[in-house]
């Protein structure tokens, strides 16, 4: 008796069981991903899986929809009273899961909670000075400086109930140096499309449909129940999908995609993620830490950086390391971000002889040695990409020594300036170029810009972009900074990461570039 035969029998049983179930069967989605949300508290962790989980139970004032377009959500409209005052009108008739009304007081409370010391969102919305309640359904947000992207920054600030938070003593997020667990870590009560029924962190989370959700008319989804199980092991996750125990997995490993695609009843969805992978070079110091060149810094020379750029064959990395699931990048920010253009994203040609010539002109005809620091558990095939780069730079005589380490060790190296040459991936939550400039281009002694690049004129422009509310003028300034970055070769862009979701054919869940599932767009196939 072969396995095939047995599986046919069991398949027959399943079919019988399915057809025998009542006509009004619930639409249940069973899904898995590698890691669970860190907490149910929507302000306690600024991390995308956690935001994705919060988005199902809690609503925001402005929502990034499935196409990453900002859509009025609990706010229905806005008015700029003056350069520093935003006025928002709130949706009427919205109710929390406990039946209480959503009002302006809840908005003021939630934003203030997100600004409190133990909140992890405070950095995102630090421009807010004060929230004023005008009437039950109107609020004003007063900013310290004019802030053109106020609404974008509110897309991850989830709205909690003031009364509920006070009742359960969770007016501030969990303090991790504290001793007690606060109520909001495992409980959630918002105005969102789903209610939290069961929460066992790392084990299981069950959400049920909120039949009183305000958005049901516009987004009439048929999802009655969502059962989430984190499955850390890749092979197990895929096996559970193949065996029909799951309907959807968020992060199938690249090597199993062909198998899933060729399995009847399953399909894949893919899109470019809002995350770009690139290499940073410390061009600011006098002498590198890990190079055999002493007394000067080869990376300070634009020709050396350009030579390295042109020696990297990103198409080969895409094909061999990423199995085709990557979009080669000429810019360190992906298409979904405001300020990105096709022209800017066009790469300089891959040309080894031109690279060699540039290196010779710069005075390094036989190259030099350097260490490349790389994480090995953060991005898709991160270590593999670095290994490929080592070989490619070797062809022009740059001897690269690779150090691949866990992310918990890698990122502090960048921020403390203990690396000459490093890999970094950057996601953009506000979907605006200013966010990228602020962290990766603006000169700083500590923090994410480990390139040592600092240009007074560019820094001033970045500051202006942060405040400019005249959009055409602002766009010109954004283009100027990108052009400077391109000419100067601050970074070596590799690719925009591509994400792939795998799901059963009975479902259709549109893939979203921020890798966060929006179940309200789910369609069931009969």
């Amino acid at each position, binding site marked *: 008796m072969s396995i095939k035969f047995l599986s046919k029998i069991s398949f027959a049983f399943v079919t019988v069981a399915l057809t025998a179930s009542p006509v009004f069967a619930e639409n249940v989605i069973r899904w898995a991903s590698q890691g669970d949300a860190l907490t149910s508290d929507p302000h306690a962790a600024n991390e995308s899986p956690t935001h994705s989980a919060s988005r199902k139970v809690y609503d925001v004032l402005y929502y990034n929809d499935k196409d990453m377009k900002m859509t009025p959500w609990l706010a229905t409209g806005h008015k700029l009273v003056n350069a520093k005052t935003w006025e928002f009108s709130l949706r009427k008739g919205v109710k929390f899961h406990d039946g209480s009304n959503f009002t302006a007081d809840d908005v003021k409370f939630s934003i203030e909670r997100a600004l409190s010391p133990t909140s992890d969102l405070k950095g995102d919305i630090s421009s807010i000075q004060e929230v004023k309640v005008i009437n039950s359904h109107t609020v004003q947000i007063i900013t310290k400086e004019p802030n053109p992207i106020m609404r974008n920054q509110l897309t991850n600030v989830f709205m909690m109930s003031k009364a509920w938070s006070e009742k359960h003593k969770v007016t501030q997020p969990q303090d991790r140096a504290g001793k007690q*667990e606060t109520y909001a870590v495992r409980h959630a009560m918002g105005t969102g499309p789903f209610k939290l029924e069961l929460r066992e962190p790392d*084990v299981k989370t069950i959400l049920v449909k909120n039949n009183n959700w305000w958005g049901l008319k516009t987004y009439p989804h048929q999802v009655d129940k969502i059962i989430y199980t984190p499955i850390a092991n890749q092979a*197990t996750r895929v096996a559970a999908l193949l065996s029909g125990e799951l309907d959807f997995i968020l992060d199938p490993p690249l090597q199993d995609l062909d198998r899933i695609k060729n399995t009847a009843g399953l399909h894949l969805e893919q899109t470019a993620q809002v995350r770009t992978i690139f290499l940073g070079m410390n061009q600011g110091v006098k002498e590198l830490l890990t190079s055999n060149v002493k007394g000067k810094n080869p990376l300070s020379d634009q020709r050396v950086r350009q030579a390295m750029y042109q020696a990297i064959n990103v198409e080969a990395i895409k094909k061999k390391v990423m199995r085709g699931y990557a979009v080669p990048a000429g810019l360190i920010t992906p298409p979904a971000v405001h300020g990105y253009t096709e022209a800017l994203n066009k790469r300089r040609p891959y040309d080894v002889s031109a690279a060699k010539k540039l290196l010779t002109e710069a005075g390094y005809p036989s190259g030099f040695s350097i260490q490349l620091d790389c994480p090995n558990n953060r991005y898709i095939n991160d270590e593999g990409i670095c290994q490929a780069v080592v070989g490619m730079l070797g062809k022009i005589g740059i001897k690269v020594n690779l150090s691949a380490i866990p992310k918990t060790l890698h990122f*502090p190296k960048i921020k403390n300036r203990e690396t000459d040459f490093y890999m970094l991936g*950057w996601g953009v939550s506000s979907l605006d170029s200013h966010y990228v400039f602020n962290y990766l281009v603006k000169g700083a002694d500590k923090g*994410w810009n480990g390139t040592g690049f600092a240009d007074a004129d560019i820094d001033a422009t970045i500051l202006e972009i942060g405040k400019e509310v005249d959009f055409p003028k602002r766009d010109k300034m954004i283009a100027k900074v990108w052009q400077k970055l391109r000419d100067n070769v601050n970074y070596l862009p590799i690719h925009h990461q591509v994400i792939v979701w795998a799901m059963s054919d009975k479902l259709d869940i549109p893939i979203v570039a921020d890798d966060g599932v929006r179940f309200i767009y789910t369609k069931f196939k009969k």
Partner: protein
Amino acid sequence: MIAYIIQRAFQALAVMIVVSLVSFMLFNFVGDPVDNMVGQEATYEERVAMRDNLGLNDPFLVQFARFVGNAVKGEFGISYRIQRPVADLIAERMPATLELVIASAFLSVLLGIPMGVYTGIRPNSWLSRSILVGSLVGVTLPTFVIGILLIYIFSVGLGVLPSFGRGEAVQLGWWSTGFLTVTGWKAIIMPSVTLALFQMTIILRLVRSEMLEVMRTDYIKFARARGLPNQIINFGHAFKNTLVPVITIVGLNLGSLIAFSIITETVFQWPGMGFLFIQAVGFADIPVMAAYLVMVAVVFVSINLFVDILYFVVDPRLRADKTVAAGN
């Protein structure tokens, strides 16, 4: 006797302190947890403030003293990763791990001993040879390969067993058990087999070699000369005498099963302590790692203490030597 136990208990305490000190020193190499705890937007100052708040900037010995002080009071702090008290997390995960370990210990003993006895009595039969060759699989294949193999056969291929999780668990007071539901029983089959395979092989081979040894001794020959039936010789005389080392090994291995079910738990997404620990390592979740390692040390130290005391009770020579050595 009492003096001996007290002496042993003190040694155990010293071992505990050394283990926690060493594990604490290792935390310096797992990296910076703060990076995982705050978003990428957090400024340098915010990160420093968080490190200060958590006491991560204090000198090593101060951190260690604080940890020991709190641990004595039973406080292990809040998990950096999932923001819940570590003591609660370990208490919640312990039943899952213990049930898995008990199930696989039963399996390995119930299968390992009979096979060991058989291969010891009939070393040359074809069945013995195939059992021995088959048992090589248990020793040579890594746990995760066996686990994945089982999943692909029984979940993907046949669709009869769940590939992950623990099924439905029933709460009995603070203990959650999977032994009261059908899904729970189905879920435990593959993880416990995976975990048991290695232990079973060890037991099988140990019993076999002990049996071979015993079967050659004079008293077995005399027993045969007395005309006793084979069954009584094999089980009444021979097998009984092989049990002492087997019991020791099974006991000690119980500790390593509890401590090192990590891989099995990861492959099957088994919600136990090992899985909790491996996730803590990835996140540099120091409170969870510290508490887990201390717990593992407690398990090993108490099993060893128990075994030492058992020896003392069982083996009269130990007592005699002690009095001689003390010069009494």
